[in-house]
């Protein structure tokens, strides 16, 4: 590699890393407990698992959806339904309500019910430590600007990974894979660890980085789907007056129409009219497949909320499929506890890569650039001069 090229890649690696490192550290530290959110919530005394037929099924003994909704609305008088979500393993059913059909996420209330007896399982509005961590991780409590900002940090992280791989070539030219010189100097030791951990966890870090960027774009992607594919399915013109909640028809009738259109599938959730995942006039019933892959790829059935008749069923566009597949690949919650443990180990490695990067920069940030480039191209055999502060 030409000297000027090494210099350019070195500067890209340095600046992209420096700008995103602090936020990446925060994302790693908040992401670590989020990997185990199910286990932690269960340990913190979350609702015990319910026995009985799956709430997503049509098994006997399950209460009608209209009865469940009425039950939820008596808990939150004056509010309107926003989402109803189902479970494939237990009779657990969740209902989200809010003050208006287009209520922002902050004013929504989530309630858990048992569909076999209509009992409230968890009281509404419980904001636990995991919700706090998730929000910090997603948008730092800043809403869409926060999400887009963290998405930008993700882009810088991926740029740091790419430039790091490019610099790995001149550095490792005369070194074996896995070289760890631990007795020469503390700097060389950490330089070797930085390179080894960075290159071995590279694919995982890239996947988590890229899927993080896609997840950060969730709001614009959903908006685009709603204004494009969804509007096309409903045939509604933009700005059509929304259906008032008082005129919403039977949910059970709507669900029967939706099931008839997608036989063999079970619903994951219903989006009520007026929210981000539906039109102002429709119940959108999202169906999932039965493999871990198709479970993530939802297909919406649109039902006229007033008449209960099917309007249209179409698979999601590519952008929404990418968003849906990015979620498991970012959170690592799709392959059982061993995968979660591996995810945590790889997160810890990433923290070491970030920390060692900062250490390496701090130690020689006053050394001339030519010396720092010589360190890269000599595989660490030439060390930059110590900074005057040392």
């Amino acid at each position, binding site marked *: 590699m030409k000297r000027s090229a090494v210099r350019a890649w070195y500067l890209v690696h340095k600046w992209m890393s420096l700008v995103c490192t602090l936020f990446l550290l925060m994302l790693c530290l908040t992401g670590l407990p989020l990997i185990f959110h199910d286990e932690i919530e269960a340990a913190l005394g979350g609702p015990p698992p319910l026995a009985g037929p799956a709430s997503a099924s049509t098994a006997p003994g399950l209460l009608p959806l209209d009865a469940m909704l009425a039950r939820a609305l008596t808990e939150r008088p004056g509010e309107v339904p926003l989402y109803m979500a189902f479970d494939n393993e237990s009779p657990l059913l969740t209902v989200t309500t809010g003050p208006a059909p287009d209520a922002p996420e902050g004013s929504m209330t989530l309630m858990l019910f048992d569909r076999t007896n209509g009992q409230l399982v968890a009281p509404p509005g419980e904001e636990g430590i995991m919700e706090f961590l998730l929000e910090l991780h997603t948008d730092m409590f800043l809403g869409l600007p926060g999400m887009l900002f963290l998405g930008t940090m993700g882009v810088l992280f991926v740029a740091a990974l790419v430039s790091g791989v490019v610099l790995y070539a001149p550095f490792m030219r005369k070194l074996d*894979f896995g*070289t760890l010189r631990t007795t020469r100097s503390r700097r060389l030791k950490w330089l070797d660890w930085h390179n*080894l*951990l960075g290159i071995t966890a590279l694919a995982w870090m890239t996947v988590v980085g890229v899927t993080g960027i896609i997840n950060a774009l969730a709001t614009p992607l959903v908006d685009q789907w709603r204004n494009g594919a969804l509007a096309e399915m409903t045939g509604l013109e933009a700005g059509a007056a929304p259906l008032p909640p008082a005129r919403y028809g039977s949910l059970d009738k709507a669900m029967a129409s939706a099931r008839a259109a997608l036989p063999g599938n079970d619903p994951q959730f219903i989006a009520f009219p007026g929210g981000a995942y539906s039109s102002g006039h429709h119940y959108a019933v999202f169906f999932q497949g039965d493999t871990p*892959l198709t479970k993530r790829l939802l297909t919406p059935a649109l039902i006229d909320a007033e008449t209960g008749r099917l309007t249209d069923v179409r698979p999601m566009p590519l952008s929404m499929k990418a968003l849906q597949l990015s979620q498991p690949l970012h959170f690592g919650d799709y392959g059982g506890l*061993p*995968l979660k443990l591996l995810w945590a180990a790889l997160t810890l490695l990433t923290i070491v890569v970030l920390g060692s990067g900062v250490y390496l920069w701090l130690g020689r940030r006053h050394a001339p650039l030519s010396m720092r480039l010589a360190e890269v191209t000599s595989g660490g055999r030439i060390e930059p001069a110590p900074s005057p502060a040392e």
Partner: protein
Amino acid sequence: MIRSTFALPAVLALLSLAGLLSALTGDGWRDLLSWTALSVPLLAIAWAASRRSPRKDDPK
């Protein structure tokens, strides 16, 4: 040792990707394959950490 700089990293990257995707496409043996494949990068690090020694510090 393999002298090519990117031979082993490429193998580790391909194994990682296979591991990430296999658990997504099904349960059972696909989960098992995922755990195995994603363990390899960690084992490579453990191997590198165990073989470091002062004498081998500066290969020519």
